[in-house]
């Protein structure tokens, strides 16, 4: 069954076209990495799937439903913690905020919700930091908090925007572990990435976005094959760091 079906999607901000005629299907159990340079349109692609960016043309079907409303089936992991950090919030409070919509805004948290938060904390290895302010965590630990927030709601599809950008090795490993468990449990994943690092073994398919179009689609290419690709320079312009894209 197709979980995500993008048909001829076009997205433009003001006059500038960011995605042109993109079609993509993701089926249950796939782990799809969306790769591309900065400004290629890869983030816009997932943001349009999440309905955060309106389509100018085309359509996106989620779980077979064009008028998809069951957002609790999707877990979203943004690039970084939200701007609303004016007031302190504990790790457990941030993770708990992932359960509010599923529970209903009028219901107070129940024992089951607290258990879900505890399970998600354990899955990312942050159980001992539950009561700490998120701002006291390292960048990698904050990123793990965000994946825990998404996992707490037990989604079927996880969408991640550059989850491992600037994350230390220990957190990347913890992150890969949590993602691996999710996939093993039958989950579907779409992730935007600059480099795959320890996530690479989990990836079942790579989609390379280039100038708002899908330039390449297939398995994780071996570095040699990738270097042989004539489009390579455009797809990933910062040459010195290019090996990092596929994991050193």
């Amino acid at each position, binding site marked *: 069954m197709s979980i995500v079906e993008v048909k001829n999607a076009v997205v433009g901000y003001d006059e500038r076209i960011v995605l042109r005629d993109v079609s993509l299907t993701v089926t249950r159990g796939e782990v799809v990495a969306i790769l591309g340079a900065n400004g290629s349109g890869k983030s816009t692609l997932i943001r349009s799937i999440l309905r955060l960016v309106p389509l100018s043309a085309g359509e996106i079907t989620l779980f077979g439903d064009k008028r998809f409303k069951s957002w609790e089936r999707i877990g979203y992991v943004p690039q970084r913690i939200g701007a609303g950090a004016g*007031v302190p919030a504990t790790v457990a409070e941030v993770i*708990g905020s992932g359960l509010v919509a599923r529970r209903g805004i009028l219901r107070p948290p129940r024992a089951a919700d607290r258990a879900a938060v505890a399970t998600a904390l354990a899955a990312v290895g942050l159980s001992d930091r539950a009561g700490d302010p998120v701002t006291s965590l390292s960048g990698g630990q904050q990123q793990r908090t965000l994946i825990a927030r998404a996992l707490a709601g037990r989604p079927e599809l996880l969408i991640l925007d550059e989850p491992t950008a600037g994350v230390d090795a220990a957190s990347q490993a913890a992150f890969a572990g949590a993602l691996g468990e999710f996939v093993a449990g039958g989950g579907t994943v779409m992730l935007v990435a600059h480099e795959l690092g320890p996530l690479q073994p989990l990836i079942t398919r790579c989609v390379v976005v280039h100038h708002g179009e899908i330039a390449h689609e297939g398995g994780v290419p071996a570095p040699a094959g990738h270097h042989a690709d004539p489009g390579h320079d455009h797809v990933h312009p910062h040459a010195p760091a290019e090996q990092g894209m596929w994991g050193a």
Partner: protein
Amino acid sequence: MGSMSIFANEFMIRAFIGAVVIGLTAPALGIYLVQRRMSLIGDGVGHVALTGVGVGLLLDRSPVLTAVIVSAIGAIAIELIRERGRTSGDVALALLFYGGIAGGVMLVGLSGSRSNANLMTYLFGSLATTSRSDLAVIVVLGAVVLGLAIGLRPALFAVSHDEEYARVSGLPVRALNLLVAVLTAVTVTISMRAVGLLLVSALMVVPVATAQQVARGFVATMGLAMVLGVAAAGSGVWLAWEIDTALGATIVVLAIAGFLVMAVAVAAVRAVRKRGALRASRPGHAAAAEPEPHEVVLDRG
């Protein structure tokens, strides 16, 4: 003299109850404004509310009622401008704020005589202006705001903390934002009699700013801010009566004094801890000298 002190007691009690309700309500709602870095929005809504007061005085209706209606419309307009996130929003907000206060001053002026003294009590609050019916309005609306601010805390926290995530998780983000806007207008209006429209925002923001210096989480910050708000409002009524100063200004000065005391105390505790850590890291305290993981260091920074 005897009848004077009885009168004094009765309006003191009314002022005290009103101030306590406001001291509890304003920070409970204000925390959501601080969290989304919109601390000054209450001030803008206060400016707009003055036009509502002017409308009420001009039509010879209850200024509280017209102020609630006009400031709610203003708050919704501000929220819709914010939602669009255009750069012109900044100028639109300025137009709304200054239009609100200028229109209010003009309308109050048009409404007749005793208006100047009247204007001052709406702008800066007064001990003597809380009538029995005012108090009923303050208590009922205050209870509604407090109930929603506490009852909807998980949802309002989620929206204020990360609006984009809240939208993707399926929360009715726009409805919740508009609710906060309307509750802000209601809080501003019920507070205007005691604290005054120009100072209402301080009671929504300052106790939260004080609390977040020491609290580790959102719920803790909210609880402590409410305690601090009640303390400032309650002691402000007493102090304003004792030294005969404007009630709103007295409450706000006490709240800011609380902020400064907290800031000094936090700095002092940090300095003592740092000294203790240095001593512990000398030879002979091998266990404490172990290098900490970097995230712990960040925590202390």
